[in-house]
């Protein structure tokens, strides 16, 4: 006897059947997962600032997905470029930092030591610094404070 199974109960991953129109250039998606992306986030902000700002301004005009495809492709390509460069130059420090984040609920304040080595390596090899936008100019940014009040528990 055959039973009706709703589409949401499938065990196979979903595959969108309709293909992308051939007029749209094909750009591969970014394959980096959440922890490495969080580790690289401020460097993506520094490296891809122009493309990111273009995309955000375009989205502010019109939220329709079709309107901002070009800017979106540029953002993806820039992020892919930076991840490739990070892996070539600072792979060890990058891996250490995102592994630390994964072990600590992906919170920055608990992984300052690996973060400092990563920031140093990124500055030396690629000239990128981590800046927190909107931080008050009178105080030191939290990632540069030597003895912060909030640290993780001693393990």
């Amino acid at each position, binding site marked *: 006897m055959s039973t009706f199974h709703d589409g*949401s109960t499938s065990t196979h*991953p*979903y*595959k*969108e059947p309709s293909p992308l129109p051939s007029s749209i250039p094909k750009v*591969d*998606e*970014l*394959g*980096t*997962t*959440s*922890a*490495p*992306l969080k580790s690289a986030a401020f460097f993506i902000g520094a490296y891809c600032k122009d493309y990111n700002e273009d995309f955000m301004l375009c989205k502010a005009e019109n939220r329709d997905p079709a309107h901002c495809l070009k800017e979106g492709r540029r953002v993806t390509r820039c*992020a*892919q*470029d930076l*991840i*490739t460069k990070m*892996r070539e130059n600072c792979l060890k420090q*990058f*891996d250490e930092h*995102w592994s630390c984040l*994964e*072990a600590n*609920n*992906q919170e920055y304040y608990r992984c300052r030591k690996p973060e400092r080595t990563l920031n140093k390596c990124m500055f030396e090899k690629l000239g990128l610094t981590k800046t927190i936008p909107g931080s008050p100019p009178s105080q030191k940014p939290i990632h540069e404070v030597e003895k912060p009040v909030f640290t993780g528990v001693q393990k």
Partner: protein
Amino acid sequence: MPVPWEALIPFGLLTAMFGTAGTLMNVSKRGQNLGKSPRYHVDPWDEMMMERDKRLTGHIRGQSTEPIAPEGFATSSVWYTQKTN
């Protein structure tokens, strides 16, 4: 006077029971999270990122640093829709 060792049995029982329960909980949680401690204070952003990680690596705690996504990632995202009228 001989030491009343029978009086220490309850302490030993408590230690053993708490220890076993705690260890089994820890092992069970780590088994579900690929050897890492579980995520907490998970907000909708984190849920979205973990679902994306599952599409990329097969597990919500799986991580990878590949710049190019695997085949099929671009077409595997699912939006749940609802009837509006």
